[in-house]
């Protein structure tokens, strides 16, 4: 691989062919229809569930979920196993600088973001998903953080980057990137979740994957300046109650945020996990709105305007509002409620052998710290409390595990998160009873993975 500072390398990992998802979409008979951030197959019947479609043949039980041979240890070459000397042992390996910007092992090629092509008309206005089922701990590697763009990824030139602050302030100011970095800095881990994460599952189990149903979330450490410090610099007028945050991308992404939140914990960040923001995450600077829906975390941020009323942008009226059964919609539903997912076993992580296993999962809450996660193996009848692996941080992904033994029986696996406010992650029935099925956003319901007798795992709906 060429040195990182050559022209060819400028586009970095994004253009590396080794990282291009090898995804193919099966021919779909159903005509699929776009509906905002969520997309429903049209052949659903009247009560909102889907009519039975043909089952993939039995052979697909393990194959269709994209299991990695390398990762499972299947088909090992005996020549490399004890007592033989493994083939990589006798010879010198690659030297330093073979890979000036390190990349994962080629055997981890399957650990990539993936999209669902039929969801959107173009990849510039689309989403892909974090492979949660392949990750450990609570940090999401930068190259695996899901992407959601409304007008593609702009190539912002850092020397030409500017942040403007205007409106109800004493001084309208323009900052360079270097000037932003001269403010006192803050380093914090936060999860970012798209409000539409799981949106395709409101009416039934639709996508057979942990990645596709929960992967619009990531968790990184941000480095940046607190907005309250920028606010002091411009001098906010007493009648300012809202801020409009605006991106410099082709969507001109804009959202209104109440000043109370701005002055609490919002940041302008320029780094994630210790390095500059990735282009697709807002390079060179983005807004961080801890615990609140991802759409508000405006990327490529170019302007903040202080005002005395909300701006009612398209993304807080047409989108990111929650339609109830009576035809009225909730507006300004910003907080991401507590949620959890079992990442293994999951549709992509079949159980391959009988015996002891570690159930693994992630939990998070936009209202604070996770205090407890319970796990059920029988569809929610009986629960055990899982072990939380620290650090358990505010508004941050939290890893949990639970050992279990599998002897070839069917399991209905669920997890239920609780946060420090006492909030309990609800069932889909409880959510539907409250909000109906038209909401699209804020589906934080408990999901069910069914472990079949052959160890394959399905996303199912109980009722």
């Amino acid at each position, binding site marked *: 691989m060429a040195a990182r500072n050559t022209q060819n390398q400028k586009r970095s990992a994004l253009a590396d062919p080794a990282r291009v998802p*090898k995804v193919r979409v099966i021919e779909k008979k159903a005509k699929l229809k*776009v509906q905002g951030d969520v997309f429903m197959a049209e052949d659903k019947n009247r009560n909102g569930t889907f009519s039975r*479609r043909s089952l993939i043949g039995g052979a697909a039980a393990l194959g269709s979920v994209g299991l990695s041979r390398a990762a499972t240890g299947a088909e090992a070459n005996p020549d490399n196993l004890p007592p033989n000397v493994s083939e990589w042992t006798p010879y010198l390996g690659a030297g330093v600088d073979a890979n000036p910007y390190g990349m994962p092992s080629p055997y981890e090629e399957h650990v990539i973001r993936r999209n669902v092509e039929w969801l959107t008309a173009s990849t510039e206005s689309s989403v892909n998903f974090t492979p949660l089922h392949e990750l450990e701990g609570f940090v999401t590697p930068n190259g695996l953080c899901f992407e959601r763009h409304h007008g593609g990824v702009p190539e912002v030139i850092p020397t030409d980057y500017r942040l403007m602050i205007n409106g109800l302030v004493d001084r309208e100011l323009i900052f360079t990137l270097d000037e932003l970095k001269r403010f006192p800095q803050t380093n914090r881990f936060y999860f970012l979740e798209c409000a539409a994460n799981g949106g395709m599952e409101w009416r039934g189990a639709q996508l057979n994957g942990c990645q596709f149903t929960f992967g619009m979330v990531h968790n990184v450490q941000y480095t940046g300046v607190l907005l309250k410090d920028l606010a002091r610099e411009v001098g906010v007028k007493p009648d300012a109650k809202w801020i409009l945050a605006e991106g410099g991308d082709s969507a001109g992404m804009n959202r209104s945020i109440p000043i109370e939140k701005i002055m609490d914990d919002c940041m302008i960040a320029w780094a994630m996990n210790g390095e500059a923001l990735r282009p697709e995450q807002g390079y060179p600077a983005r807004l961080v709105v801890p615990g609140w829906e991802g759409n508000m975390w405006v990327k490529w941020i170019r302007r903040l305007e202080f005002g005395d009323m909300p701006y009612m942008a*398209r993304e807080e009226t*047409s989108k990111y509002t929650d339609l109830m059964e009576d035809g009225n919609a909730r*507006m300004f539903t910003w*907080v991401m409620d507590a949620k959890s997912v079992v990442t293994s076993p999951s549709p992509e992580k079949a159980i391959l052998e009988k015996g002891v296993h570690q159930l693994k999962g992630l939990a998070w809450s936009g209202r604070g710290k996770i205090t407890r996660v319970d796990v059920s193996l029988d569809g929610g009848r009986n629960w055990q409390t899982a072990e939380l692996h620290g650090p358990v941080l505010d508004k941050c992904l939290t890893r949990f595990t639970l050992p279990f033994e599998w002897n070839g029986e069917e399991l209905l696996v669920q997890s239920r998160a609780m946060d420090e406010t006492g909030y309990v992650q609800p069932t889909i029935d409880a959510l539907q009873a409250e909000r109906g099925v038209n909401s699209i956003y804020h589906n934080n319901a408990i999901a069910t993975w069914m472990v079949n007798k052959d160890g394959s795992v399905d996303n199912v709906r109980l009722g």
Partner: protein
Amino acid sequence: MSGLVKAWLAGGAMLALVASPALASERPFNLGKIATPEEVAGWDIDVRPDGLGAPVGMGNAIDGEEIYADRCAACHGDFGEAVDNWPVLVGGEGTLDSHDPVKTTGSYWPYASTMYDYIYRAMPFGEAQSLTYDETYQIVAFLLYMNDIIEDDFEVSHENIGTIEMPNRDGFFMPDPRPDAQPVASEPCMTNCDVPTNIIGRARDIDVTPEQES
């Protein structure tokens, strides 16, 4: 702005953390440069529900038809009905309380100002901020006309963009009623819980999940 929003703002909760006047005159870090009015004008493109920020200009649906056909119809359809997977812009009245809601500028959007704001900043897709102010008013007028909200010769302008009554103006409510859907008992059930465990749907049967090549 709806009465509800006003009532909520008047509630006072939002006022608590506004910077105190004492801080307003200090400039603690002396970083950044003062923006000139021209610099602000070039970037300050938002238009609020009360019309604040709307640039001087006007346009009607008759004039808007041609420019819409030219710049928008390839994706959104001649009548706003949408081509393929691109968004629908017209129709959908009376569907919001059904299980097949069609949310369009006409059936769902509460403010005409949002149409101006969004179309100018983001459309045509891939040619952001390329419309003139008058062209944007003309297209807004065309979409309002197609949604039966105004007559075809009505001039939409900076003076009235904040006053046009949208059909779903009162269709939104706040504040956020969450947390909702919580168990009645303070402790969630741990054993022998009374929950349904029949399988009523499987994603595998829906068969819309992308496969990974092996």
